[in-house]
């Protein structure tokens, strides 16, 4: 939803928000009952925490239960450093310490592929426990709690009014940061990570760096709010600060409001805080809990995209398509090759083992510029593994990979994508929660061309036109049939501007008519100057398209040469049909 409505919601909402924030900033001048400022402050507090959480948890999909830790670091930074440093520097330090902790944790955990999903959530929960234990067992607190009596800048007559203003500024700032992240390149990358991190990486998204940036921003904002809140509560204790209720509330607010939209968590925070506050009477205390629970159940069932999804649903319009221009009939141009001698890609003695299973065993091959290289082999022969090694998804156990003569064996997936290596998947792996256009924007932004946002959109539209999906720009992948999803994959590699495209069984599951269309499409892509590695079981297509054919069997390269000669090679026949057939 966030991606589908990306351009529609932000423009109109922002001036309204800014106007609202200005009006709220002036509220103390009208001397409202102090309680209103205090209540609004609590809303600002939760808006900041929920919004900062969503930059990591909502946008990138890395659900964190450790947000209380970052907030707590901010609380104790202010409690301990506020007096010696004064408010401003202490507040900045509160944010920086939280950010440093977040980045340090991310630098370790984000490198480990298996630490995603619930494992990441549990790990961050442990972080909160560790931090609270450190705080509790050191002079940072030591157990009895810390009184916080720190002077804050004098803006309004009442200190509480000034604190309210600070809370407003932090909350508004957090929303604007989340907006900038979502609408910027970082947001594109984070949403791609959220939907399919491996695909994002091989499409060129620097996933590790982006996640680090996201956790850094997220924890910085939480730390800053913690610093402000330490002054608000005036006495901080470990039990209260690191309570599990903080990350839980933040999570609930984000989900209720819409975790994949910069404004969603703020809406969730407003609703839950207001409900929570509406039932504080002595006789109705339990109603608040029940009301919050009921709201969440209803929202989960009826508003899977949160309140923001409901608000924006009526306003969704198809993105404006750029006016057709002359180049539409042609494919997007592939960047010219740098003048180098030798093959485009060379694999030398590539070995890939999985716990004793050798999927590739000393495979050496070359892919020459401008050719269509067919790659066939029985199931389990290592074809997809080879593509995974070339695109950087797997690091080979042995061997060297050269691109235009340069060793790229140690390069990450996104670095290879930027060199111009792209692939499709046997079973299409689009970003499920992004529209067709947004799916294709990702490689246009992050791929070989590394376009600016405006150009990337043009490039994406060209690719969409090229594969004939222009009527489905605003559709979600689930709304496409298999044929269209395969073409969506083709459009992604086209938009990336890659020099070498690896097509992994693009024809699988298609009807004969669709296969013919797909073959034609591959020809058109090749005609644009793209080198193609064509992995396929359909021999008719392989023979029709390939300039050269290689065969893998049980991880070994067993044939390489003219397609028609290769398929007649007894070794190849034996690989497919057994030794008896080869002899016959």
């Amino acid at each position: 939803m966030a991606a589908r409505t990306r351009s529609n919601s932000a423009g109109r909402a922002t001036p309204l928000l800014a106007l609202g924030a200005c009006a709220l900033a002036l509220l103390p001048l009208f001397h409202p009952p102090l309680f209103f400022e205090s209540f609004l402050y609590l809303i600002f507090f939760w808006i900041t925490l929920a919004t900062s959480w969503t930059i990591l948890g909502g946008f990138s999909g890395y659900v964190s239960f450790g947000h209380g830790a970052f907030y707590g670091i901010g609380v104790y930074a202010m409690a301990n450093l506020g007096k010696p440093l004064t408010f401003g520097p202490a507040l900045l330090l509160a944010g920086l310490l939280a950010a440093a902790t977040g980045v340090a944790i991310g630098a370790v955990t984000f490198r480990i592929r298996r630490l995603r999903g619930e494992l990441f959530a549990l790990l961050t929960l442990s972080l909160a426990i560790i931090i609270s234990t450190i705080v509790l067992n050191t002079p940072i607190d030591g157990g009895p709690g810390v009184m916080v009596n720190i002077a804050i800048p004098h803006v309004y007559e009442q200190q509480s009014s000034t604190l309210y203003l600070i809370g407003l500024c932090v909350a508004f700032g957090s929303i604007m940061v989340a907006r900038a992240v979502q609408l910027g390149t970082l947001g594109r990358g984070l949403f791609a990570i959220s939907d399919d991190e491996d695909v994002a990486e091989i499409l060129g998204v620097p996933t590790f760096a982006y996640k680090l940036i996201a956790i850094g921003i997220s924890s910085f904002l939480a730390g800053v709010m913690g610093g402000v809140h330490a002054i608000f509560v005036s006495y901080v204790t470990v039990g209260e600060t690191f309570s599990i209720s903080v990350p839980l509330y933040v999570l609930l607010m984000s989900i209720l409001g819409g975790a994949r939209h910069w404004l969603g968590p703020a809406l969730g925070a407003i609703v839950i805080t207001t409900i929570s506050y509406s039932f504080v009477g002595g006789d109705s205390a339990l109603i608040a809990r029940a009301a919050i629970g009921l709201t969440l159940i209803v929202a989960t069932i009826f508003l899977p995209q949160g309140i923001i999804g409901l608000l924006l649903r009526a306003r969704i319009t198809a993105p404006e398509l750029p006016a057709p221009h002359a180049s539409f009939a042609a494919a997007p141009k592939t960047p010219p090759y740098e003048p180098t001698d030798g093959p485009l890609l060379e694999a030398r003695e590539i070995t890939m083992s999985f716990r004793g299973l050798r999927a590739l065993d000393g495979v050496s091959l070359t892919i020459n510029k401008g050719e269509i290289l067919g790659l066939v082999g029985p199931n389990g022969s290592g074809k997809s593994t080879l593509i995974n090694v070339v695109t950087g998804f797997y690091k080979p156990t042995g061997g060297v990979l050269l691109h235009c003569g340069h060793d790229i064996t140690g390069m990450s997936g996104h670095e290879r994508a930027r060199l111009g290596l792209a692939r499709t998947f046997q079973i299409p792996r689009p970003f499920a929660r992004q529209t067709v256009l947004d799916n294709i924007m990702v490689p246009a932004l992050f791929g070989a061309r590394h376009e600016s946002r405006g150009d990337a959109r043009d490039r994406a539209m060209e690719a969409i036109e090229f594969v004939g999906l222009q009527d489905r720009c605003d559709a979600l992948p689930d709304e496409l049939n298999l044929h269209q999803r395969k073409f969506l994959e083709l459009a992604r590699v086209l938009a990336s501007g890659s020099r070498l495209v690896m097509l992994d069984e693009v024809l699988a599951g298609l009807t004969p008519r669709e296969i013919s269309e797909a073959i034609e499409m591959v020809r058109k892509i090749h005609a644009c100057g793209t080198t193609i590695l064509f992995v396929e079981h359909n021999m008719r297509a392989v023979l029709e398209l390939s300039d050269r054919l290689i065969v893998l069997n049980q991880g070994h390269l067993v044939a390489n040469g003219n397609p028609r000669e290769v398929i007649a090679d007894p070794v190849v026949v034996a690989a497919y049909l057994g030794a008896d057939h080869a002899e016959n």
Partner: protein
Amino acid sequence: MKTIGLKAGVTRRGALAAGAAMMASAAGVGRAAAQASGAPIRVGGTLALTGPLAQTGAIHKVVGEIFIEQENKAGGMLGRPIEWVLLDDQSKPDLARTLYERLLTVDKVDLLMGPYATANILSAMSVAQRFNKVLIHHTFGIPKLANYDRHFPAWPLGAEPEKTVTGNLFDALASTGKAPKSIAIVTSKFPSVQFLAAGARDVVKQRGIEEKLYLEFEFGNRDFGPIAARVREANADLLYVGAIGLEGSQLLEALDQLNYKPRNHYYVYPTPGPLASSPLGADAMAATAYEDLAPLNASTTAQEFSKLFRVAAQKAKLPYLEPDTQAATSYSAWQTLTGAVNATKSLDDKVLADYLKGNGADTIVGKFRFDGANNYGPDLMKVKQVQNGAWVIVWPKEQATPGKTIIVK
């Protein structure tokens, strides 16, 4: 919003009975019953009615309701009924602050009553201070943190409980001639508990008692096995447990698993019921401000309170039906407030504060004085001990349950 008040009239017989009871009270309210009439006096406060502190918060709600009903039957304050504007702070200090601001600026209550628990009271205190309001509270655990000159504590710890509460204990033990020569201190890191336990170390040092073990554990800890092993290894004459809630009982169970029974054992704020009813809790000691035992319950007011509390606690399904420190200090806080208003015939905060500082308050817990550091008076805490499956007061001697003396091994 919870408002409790009796606006309807009471029967003549009831009024007379209530009046007679009040006059007989050792707490000395001493007012003839009269029908409360006119606009109510609104007393605002919050309690932890939900959240992690709700179980204890419920005790204070029950007590407040008992008191206001009694008071209104007896003529209210200044002849006007009391209306309690009670809000739920959800056990959160930040919400407590906001709600006290609401009580003062939106609900415009006349007087304040404090919330439950130290952190929430500090939040409320900061608001009271900004508005120069009197804040009477019942459960503040760290006196040195309360430096507002119009706050008045009903939890009678004295200004330095870290010294006096433990001092009382050792005085009690020394009175038998069998003062412990060694001690093992284990404490939760719950702020008000750890604060007392840390202070106990200094007292122990001053008295020349050997500290064989000092161990802190996280509040909420459930695994007492390793702690029990250390306690057994220390094998001190006295086990001092800075425990809140069920932690003390859990430690005893862990010790029992190791076939170890502490010779003497003391708990700071235990949940009283389980400790008394368990065989493992035999001879356990704890601090208390009140039990429904002679001579503490000698006054009619105390007896009436104890009786009403049991009924109300059962109705509210509280787990422990005996009125003890929590309930009694809560009641005393209300006595302090209404006593000051009735004595001064004023709702002015300065007048009330001056009166309380000068005169203190007569309560079922004892005579409060607020003339010491941070408005604290003497430490009125007593030492109680589980004997034959029930708590009895054992120290100071003049307040000990008749026929009961401290058992030291």
